[in-house]
């Protein structure tokens, strides 16, 4: 049946492009960028590029990385993706301290707040957990075995997040759902108790993050979606606290009228260190959008749009550290067809004001102002400089890829009838 669907798909077996991802160490000691199968890390404390050491018998990533994530304490970095391999790196030694083989492609990863467990979700909707404890006595790394803890029924899980107090694990999927599950004492036994579902999005949910607020130990959850809204949720009750439509604002900021049907799907969001700002990456926006969250009034509002002048940069991923008021962004792609460089990446950073005073403006840092400067950019971007046309093509390719991955295919009535007629069981009869 799957094959029949493939045949009918728009571009079957087309080489899948993958966006670039960025992750920032919680204390901004290092920054990691993943493009394709390449994981690039720059050490900001030592001001030098990092070379990752992988002694495990398993190979390095051999296909597109789809998720990278630092643990809350910053001791771990986890990377995973289409090669069905989850790799856990120590950020002290940059050694690979664990490699987990999965049955399916991995779409998202999260590290428990105590750093003891790594969770990852596969494209069939199953969330797995594996202990991330380093095996000190045993030098030879044993193959870690992951246990399934929960599942969304056959839906791609797009984002995984632990609540700030560690009580809940939150998972979002392409079927518009956000599930809040109670983290059990021993996650390896499975997480069976569902706290609630956060329902209200009318398209795939693409990203999640928590607002850390002292008044809300569970945190307030923010989610971004293909329906071009950002929503604020109470994770204990699942109630929708506020909805922020970003379409109209993004419309104003899209200056070139190239697109007939601008798509304001939100690709990534990240909450910033001041606790109330939320940065958004939007599929049509050459820059970022900043929202304000008022935790006591439980509201969201659009604060600003920061456009990136002079180049075509539609961020594919955002990252920030807990300590510094710096928002990092990357745009990039791997396996782009028809250009000399099959993978490319561009990193920029925006300095965010500490408080949310009216006159404090976010400042886009020049390349030489970024911590680590040119050396960092060389490491994270690769040394090639790339024209705007390539980035435009990349943005288009990524949009198409995201659509075909997450948006439900609509077939006309005729096409559906045709598909029914060519069903396998009917074929046998004739």
């Amino acid at each position, binding site marked *: 049946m799957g094959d029949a669907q493939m045949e009918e798909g728009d571009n079957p077996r087309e080489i899948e492009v993958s966006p670039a991802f960025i992750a920032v160490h919680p204390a901004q000691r290092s920054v990691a960028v993943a493009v394709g199968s390449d994981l690039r890390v720059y050490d900001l404390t030592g001001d030098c590029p990092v070379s990752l050491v992988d002694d495990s018998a398993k190979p390095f990533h051999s296909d597109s990385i789809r998720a990278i994530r630092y643990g809350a304490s910053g001791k771990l970095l986890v990377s995973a993706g289409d090669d069905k391999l989850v790799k856990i790196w120590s950020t002290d030694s940059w050694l690979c301290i664990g490699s987990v083989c999965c049955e399916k492609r991995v779409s998202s990863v999260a590290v428990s707040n105590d750093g003891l467990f790594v969770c990852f979700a596969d494209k069939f909707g199953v969330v797995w957990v594996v202990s991330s404890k380093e095996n000190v006595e045993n030098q030879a790394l044993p193959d870690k075995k992951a246990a399934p803890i929960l*599942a969304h029924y056959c839906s791609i899980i797009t984002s995984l997040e632990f609540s700030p107090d560690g009580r809940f694990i939150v998972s979002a999927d392409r079927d518009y759902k956000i599930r809040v599950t109670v983290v059990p004492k021993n996650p390896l036994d499975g997480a069976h108790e569902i706290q*609630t579902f956060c329902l209200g999005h009318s398209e795939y949910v693409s990203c999640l993050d928590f607002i850390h607020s002292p008044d809300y130990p569970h945190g307030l959850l923010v989610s971004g979606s293909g329906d071009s809204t950002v929503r604020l949720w109470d994770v204990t009750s699942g109630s929708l606290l506020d909805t922020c439509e970003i379409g109209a604002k993004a419309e104003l900021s899209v200056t070139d009228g190239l697109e007939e049907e601008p798509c304001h799907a939100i690709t990534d969001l990240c909450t910033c260190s001041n606790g109330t700002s939320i940065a958004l990456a939007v599929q049509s926006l050459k820059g970022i959008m900043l929202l304000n969250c008022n935790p006591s009034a439980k509201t969201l509002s659009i604060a600003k749009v920061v456009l990136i002048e002079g180049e075509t940069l539609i961020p594919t991923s955002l990252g920030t550290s807990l300590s510094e008021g710096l928002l990092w962004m990357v745009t990039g792609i791997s396996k782009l067809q028809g250009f000399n460089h099959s993978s490319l990446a561009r990193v920029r950073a925006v300095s965010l004001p500490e408080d949310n005073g009216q006159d404090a403006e976010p400042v886009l840092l020049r390349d030489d102002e970024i911590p680590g400067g040119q050396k960092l950019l060389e490491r994270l971007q690769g040394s090639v400089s790339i024209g705007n046309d390539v980035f435009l093509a990349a943005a288009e390719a990524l949009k198409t890829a995201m659509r075909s991955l997450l948006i439900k295919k609509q077939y006309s009535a005729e096409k559906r009838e045709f598909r029914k007629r060519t069903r396998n069981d009917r074929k046998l009869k004739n």
Partner: protein
Amino acid sequence: MIEKETTSTFNKSTGLPRKRFYRARAHSNPLSDSHFPVPLSPSQFDYSLHYPQLFPASSDDDNPKRIQFADIGCGFGGLLVALSTLFPDKLMIGMEIRDKVTEYVKERISALRTTNPSQYQNISVVRTNSMKYIPNYFEKGQLMKMFFLFPDPHFKEKNHRRRVISPHLLDEYAYTLAVGGIIYTITDVEELGEWMKGCLENHPMFEALTEEELENDPVVKLLTSATEEGQKVARNGGQTFQAIYRRIAPSL
């Protein structure tokens, strides 16, 4: 001509729809993308559409009554019809993924409502994929009874994830069931019976009913006698395998 066609799909003496016009393939792929409307959340489920007499659209006062019984994969609706008169004050819904079969149940209920005014107002049916959308229909702890009667066995191991009772889906059923709520499963396929029993037995939020409790529950007898599949098994002298479990609070 069309007019004639539609009226003749009903049995003249009983006024009920005739099954031969609603035959459908016995299997449906629960993994494929759905094209039917699904409420975005339980609060958007339109009760006035399904239970018009109990929830008149015009009235302002909100009837706080909510669905308490769900027959997942209700088929031709035999159990719903039997339960309707047994529990006249409970709201029930059948969920079915095959559209033709859902149409049949819809017609059957409306025919029953016409011939028995004031009866059968508490049952309805919806076409949906319950494996994906249960949380879109019911709040946490809303249901008192869930039925999984003669589900598709999906013999191949490759297709086990399509089974409607599975360790992960039980988490969702435990979420929608109130503590003390009961899940009824029955099948004529021994292998599936063992699978369902195993899944429920190993789940920390379900416990088996005792023999005595099963004996005293009037619903248990209906599992075989009221459903079309159950009657078929009885006709052919087949065996059935049931697993009936209660939702309990998880131990901490």
